[in-house]
């Protein structure tokens, strides 16, 4: 089920893009990542919008006053919050739903890139069983050389005048993940939310940085591309919301 509907279409699409781009696997990863993000844009948009609206609501005076006023009456607090959400068209479930639907697509994309790189005989043998008949067999295995990198190996830049190697992609992954996390999880006014945001801001860049440092650089390239697109998307959305802010109801009114 997973292989048939998610993994195999992604692997074969990736290989077709590879063929279309003159058998450049690095460019294929970049374009494929962009396409998948484009397809999932409505879901991502919904999720990011939901996060931003919620952040605005939680930062408003009205929300804080409401928390204080009904702190001993949870039922009433819930009712008042619901009113506020309705005013701003906020659906508490919409953000989660978008993320949950995106999840298998992200995992599928990740697995497709790993499988397509097929850096060992066993992986190549497994790949051969996932390829559609119309894919030219001459394309397999893919050429994993991109710029100075072997995309099947962890990336290190070696400069003749330096006694050590620089993990350029790892550094880019950590920075871009940090920026994207900051952008998509705005600061929360309550301490619980703030703590969580801080955790995400530290945990995610380190986790993905570790992957980028130890795993095939094709994955690191995907992380960087995906993060950069996410950052651009987040900035555009933020700009649009700011420009439309005048047309919205004023949250601060009490």
């Amino acid at each position, binding site marked *: 089920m997973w292989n048939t509907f998610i993994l195999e279409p992604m692997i074969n699409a990736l290989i077709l893009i590879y063929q279309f781009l003159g058998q450049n696997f690095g460019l294929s990863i970049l374009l494929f990542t962009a396409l998948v993000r484009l397809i999932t844009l409505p879901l991502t948009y919904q999720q990011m919008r939901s996060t931003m609206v919620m952040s605005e609501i939680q930062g408003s005076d009205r929300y804080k006053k409401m928390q204080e006023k009904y702190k001993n009456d949870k039922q009433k607090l819930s009712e008042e919050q619901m009113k506020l959400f309705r005013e701003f068209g906020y659906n508490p479930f919409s953000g989660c739903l978008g993320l949950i639907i995106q999840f298998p697509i992200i995992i599928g994309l990740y697995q497709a890139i790993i499988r397509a790189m097929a850096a*060992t005989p066993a992986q190549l043998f497994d790949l051969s069983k996932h390829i559609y008949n119309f894919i030219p067999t001459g394309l397999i295995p893919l050429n994993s050389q991109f710029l100075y990198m072997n995309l099947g190996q962890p990336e290190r830049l070696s400069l003749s005048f330096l006694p050590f190697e620089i993990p350029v992609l790892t550094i880019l992954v950590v920075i871009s993940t940090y920026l994207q996390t900051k952008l998509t999880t705005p600061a929360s006014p309550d301490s619980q939310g703030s703590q969580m945001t801080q955790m*995400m801001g530290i945990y995610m860049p380190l986790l993905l940085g570790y992957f980028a440092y130890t795993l095939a650089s094709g994955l690191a390239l995907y992380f960087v591309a995906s993060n950069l697109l996410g950052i651009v998307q987040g900035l555009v959305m933020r700009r649009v919301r700011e420009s439309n802010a005048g047309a919205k109801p004023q949250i601060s009114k009490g």
Partner: protein
Amino acid sequence: MTFIKVLSRNKWATLLTLVIAGFVLSSCSSASALAASSWPGVRADSENAYVAYGPFVRAISLRTGEEQWHFPAEADRAVSFYAPPAIDEEGHIIVGGYDKQVYSLSPDGLSASITWTFDGSQDRIIGGPLIADGTVYVPSADRKLYALDLETGQPVWAQPFEAGHSLWSAPLMNGTHIYIAALDHHVYALNPQTGAVEWSVDLGSAVSDTPTLTDGLLLCGTFEGVLYALDTETGSIAWTFEASDAIWGNPAAEGGNAFFADVSGIAYSVAIADGSMNWKRDLPGPTSATPAILGDRVYFASETSAVTALVMDNGDPAWPSSATLTGRLLADPIVTSEGLLIPAMESECELYMVDPDTGGSRCLFQAQ
């Protein structure tokens, strides 16, 4: 109250989802990219099997299954082995690692000491080295074939031979040429003294396994599912045979016939003289291994844990049913003095010994 919970959960759900994603990605990675695992690389002499699999190269007694030694003495996360070791009658043991190093080993108690190492490879050693005439030829995923002095590990050629893609197969020698198949779709014949290309042939798709040298021909199975017979002197194509699917494991040759299977699990017998098909039979599963031949039988190992014995003359089953082992049987079966040695991947038992007459099996070696 419900929506307060949802509210507070919303962000936590986001974090939880990301954490789960992290674990999923992590587990995917360890299964494929990080572990970079493949099937065991195995060679055998009259007494021992030499198994390169994961963190160790091991010498295992064929008779008792006892480990004689392993290298390195302690596992190192940065070092792993999957290329079949090269061994010769003088006791040389050469093994290439996924750490890009080539090691010449000498058994030393329960471990092995290093006689020399070669660190000139820029990528992993996936194909098995070849020892011939005092030289060891080492194929590398960095696209190069290195010729090293067997005693010192020093390069013999002025420059290593370089193909257009990785070398995953082992080189072959017939006295006058070194042959190597590359993932760049080519088969190359090289001068053993200099590494110069004598001829090369583009077969249109990759040859991942070591070709078979027989009767003045080089038999090469391709990803396109075509078996090519090349003249060893000129590289000209003598004949071709089209299988139903990609051919990974190259043929075993005996009595003027070649025996092989394709990835979809169909076994074939073709005449080496002209490539005409003698018979074909369905196997229990996908097959990547070169079959083994003993007596009048040919033995196929399939990914689905099955070993099948067929009569060479007509392809009829030699056992009442296939022997069922455990794990993925992707490595080549090997005929030994004690029976049929079957390496298993992703199995608690790394090595099985199968009775070639009856199909009865026992676990020869199980890693602790």
